[in-house]
């Protein structure tokens, strides 16, 4: 019986299993799991060359520099090597080179100046600027025709979603808004700034009128995944005058406009090509309601290609034509000297500059970078031709993990340029020929604990045939129609820059420049200190993110006084003019809106210490007494609201 029950159980189980299997066979099949979705993630990055000379500031750094008012091009004055002329003014001597020897570029487009008149903000909206870099020597090969330094701004990549920023301050308002379209293939942006300083200033000084405006426009379109077309337009307008006894005297009235169309191609092998063309218009008002103007047409192209893993090659060329024109006065109505000056600067003509270059970057090992470039430029003006070769070499060699050796050599030619950059004003006929700079520097970079970086560089630059108001024997002449080329100038010194990225929660910087600029120093031209020499420039500052949206930054700046004027014996006896020191402060309270939006209330003061800058000394031989004359105090407060998407 037991055996029979076991058999029955087995049969029952088998029957159940069979039934179950049949039932399962009759059920509909379960759906197959979906294929995993593959998302393509594109990571774009810009490989930054570790140039031994360049200083860079990114968006999140320059915005917090106290006294810069959020402007990238003002923020660079924290960098070493810049010797200010007067506190607050955006004119510098860079390693001894005068302001006329400094070139300003935005996306490789040359512009006459970066700031509005006097203390005005930059001409490019901060929202559009990704990075600003200062090249004091051995510039990248695509930059040339300036013997001093290059200040270059690079705009941000087009957005993948709507973004913008706006600022409303006591004396001006501005903003920039950019949005993608066509499914992200294109983008379009517009912005600008409008000042209402006229109304504000008239409350305190009715006779003064200061007005400035600018605009920035950009449109991009990806023709293919690797081919982008960009149209970038921007311009600036400045006006300053004083009205006395019903007569308005215009100090400065100028405008410039640029329209740049470029095509960027990124090949599969990583090589990049850019071809671009630029048109521009500059105009400056002269005395008696006359104008100087120029139309600029330019084209440039460059190709960058990697030759293996260690070598990168760049070749390029550019050409610029400045079509000058101006309202010449009647030769009968003005003095001979004034007519000569007007003719020298404003007579109709076309000046050209054509350049070509080849550059190679060698990275044999991680951290190594050796860049050699050979550039040449040909200048023409009113039948005169000049050739300016410009070889350069930059070296960065890691000695140890935390220490790298830096060195740079370069030759930089420059055509004659007016002492202060002004649109549509240039010398006719290359008088006196090209100026040249011979640049030499060497130093080291240290990676320190707590993400600090220390860079120390010694430099020696020699300049020949440049123009500056500081001439022979310190004589300063503002009326010469063609200021003779300056005596040979040499500048030497030491730059020290200790910093922690300003975008960190706690950041600090210390910048020191010890230098000497000397005129002459040849057998026929005795050596003497440049009238604008400052023995030292020292800055120290910090940024603190205090949490809850509060961020504060402060800076202390001091620099040495000018040497005494050599033809004032009493002043010479007293030595240099007094040093200058000032403090800047910035306080921001930010409220976050959504994921990326923000509103900030910003209070910022340049020269909150109310310091005066001694610029002259007047001595009376009868009494033997001297009195220092000071400029200022130039205190610039800024209170405003900023917002961004």
């Amino acid at each position: 019986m037991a055996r029979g029950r076991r058999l029955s159980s087995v049969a029952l189980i088998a029957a159940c299993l069979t039934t179950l299997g049949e039932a399962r066979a009759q059920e509909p099949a379960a759906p197959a799991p979906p294929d995993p979705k593959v998302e393509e993630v594109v990571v774009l990055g810009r490989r930054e060359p570790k140039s031994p000379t360049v200083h860079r500031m990114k968006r999140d750094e320059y915005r917090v520099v106290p006294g810069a008012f959020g402007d990238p091009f003002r923020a660079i004055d924290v960098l070493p090597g810049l010797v200010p002329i007067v506190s607050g003014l955006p004119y510098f001597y860079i390693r001894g080179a005068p302001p006329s020897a400094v070139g300003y570029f935005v996306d490789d487009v040359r512009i006459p100046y970066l700031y509005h008149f006097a203390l005005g903000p930059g001409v490019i909206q901060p929202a559009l600027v990704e990075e600003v870099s200062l090249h004091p020597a051995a510039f990248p090969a695509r930059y040339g025709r300036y013997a001093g330094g290059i200040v270059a701004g690079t705009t941000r990549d087009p957005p993948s979603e709507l973004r913008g920023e706006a600022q409303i301050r006591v004396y001006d308002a501005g903003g920039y808004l950019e949005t993608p379209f066509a499914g992200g293939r294109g983008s379009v942006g517009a912005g600008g700034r409008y000042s209402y300083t006229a109304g504000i200033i008239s409350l305190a000084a009715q006779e003064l009128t200061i007005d400035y405006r600018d605009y920035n426009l950009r449109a991009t379109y990806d023709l293919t995944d690797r081919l982008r077309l960009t149209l970038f337009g921007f311009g600036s307008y400045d006006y300053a005058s004083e009205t006395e006894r019903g007569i308005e005297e215009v100090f400065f009235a100028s405008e410039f406009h640029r329209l740049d169309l470029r095509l960027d191609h990124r090949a599969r092998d990583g090589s990049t090509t850019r071809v671009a063309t630029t048109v521009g218009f500059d105009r400056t008002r002269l005395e008696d309601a006359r104008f100087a103007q120029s139309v600029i047409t330019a084209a440039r192209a460059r190709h960058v290609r990697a030759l293996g893993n260690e070598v990168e090659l760049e070749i390029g060329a550019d050409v610029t034509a400045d079509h000058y024109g101006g309202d010449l006065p009647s030769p009968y109505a003005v003095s001979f000297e004034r007519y000569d000056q007007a003719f020298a600067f404003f007579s109709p003509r076309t000046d050209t500059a054509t350049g070509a270059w080849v550059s190679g970057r060698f990275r044999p090992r991680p951290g190594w970078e050796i860049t050699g470039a050979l550039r040449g430029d040909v200048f023409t003006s009113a039948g005169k031709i000049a050739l300016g070769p410009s070889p350069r070499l930059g070296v960065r060699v890691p000695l140890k993990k935390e220490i790298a050796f830096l060195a740079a050599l370069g030759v930089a030619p420059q055509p004659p340029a007016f002492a202060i950059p002004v649109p549509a004003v240039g010398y006719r006929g290359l008088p006196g020929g090209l100026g040249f700079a011979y640049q030499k520097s060497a130093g080291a970079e240290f990676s320190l604990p707590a993400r600090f970086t220390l860079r120390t560089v010694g430099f020696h630059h020699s300049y020949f045939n440049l123009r500056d108001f500081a001439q022979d024997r310190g004589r300063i002449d503002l009326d010469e129609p063609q200021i003779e080329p300056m005596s040979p100038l040499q500048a030497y010194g030491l730059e020290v820059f200790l910093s922690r990225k300003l975008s960190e929660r706690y950041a600090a910087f210390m910048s020191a420049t010890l230098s000497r600029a000397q005129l002459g120093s040849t057998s026929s031209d005795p050596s003497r200190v440049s009238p604008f020499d400052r023995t030292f420039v020292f800055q120290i500052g910090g940024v603190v993110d205090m949490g809850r949206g509060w961020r504060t930054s402060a800076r202390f700046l001091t620099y040495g006084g000018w040497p005494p004027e050599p033809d004032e014996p009493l002043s010479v006896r007293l030595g240099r003019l007094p040093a200058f020191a000032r403090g800047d402060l910035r306080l921001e309270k930010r409220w976050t809106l959504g994921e990326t939006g923000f509103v900030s209330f910003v209070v910022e003061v340049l020269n909150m210490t109310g310091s005066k800058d001694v610029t002259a000394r007047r001595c009376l031989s009868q009494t033997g007494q001297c009195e220092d004359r000071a400029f200022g105090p130039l205190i610039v407060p800024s209170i405003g609201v900023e917002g961004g998407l």
Partner: protein
Amino acid sequence: MKRALFFAAAIAACVPASEELPPTGAAGFVTEPSPATRGEPLVTIDGWTLVFEKVALAGDVSALVRTSGVSSYGRSAGWLWDAAQVVEIYVPAILVGPASVNVELRGNYLPLSRGEDRRRHLGIAPELADRFSRVPEQGLANANDYGYGRGPSLIVIVRAENEGRVKRMDVALTSGFSSRSALQDGPVIDIREDQLSVRTLAIRVEALFEDASGGPMSFADFAAADDEGNADGTISAVELLAHELTPKTGSSANRSTDLLALLSSRGGSILAPR
């Protein structure tokens, strides 16, 4: 103080301040060279054929502007020009309105500092212009104790020929006379905005060889100066200086003089404003 001016300009303007200027114009002369001045042959009474190869002048054009009432102000401009050409010499930047204008031959005070010669040049070759800034071979006129004196105001290069004899005279003369009274009493012209108002200036280089009364020309004394010197065919200023003239042939009946002084005294008479 100079650096203060610099950065004031840096703040304010590096191009001239743009104010409305009062209306101004220019006053001066348009020259009218005689045929001889232009190089056409001229025959003297003693049979010499003169050809003036080069005549260059240095002078000051002066304008006296009459403002309201009896007040006035003067301006001048220096010129170097080729007398053979028709040119405009003038003073610019004069307020519109009535003005008197005159011209006189005048050399710079020599020696000059570098860049001090601000005269305008018209049709003058650089090497010829440079002679006006150099002390001539005969020395400076009325040089003071420090060695400063008036430089040349007239350079004449003339070729003379007579019956196969050829002489060449190349002299830099220091001539000039004050015409202040002439300026004040001269004709009044009206200065107009952005325009040049002119008088005619006749230039007769042949007046160098005329006596004070405008009498006929004679060249024999000049030729003799070379014969008495080194007889090389070139009449130099030194040879002219060495050739004394008797009163009957000199510019003055009361005292003797030399040929160089005679020429220099006649220099101003080659200009005749009309």
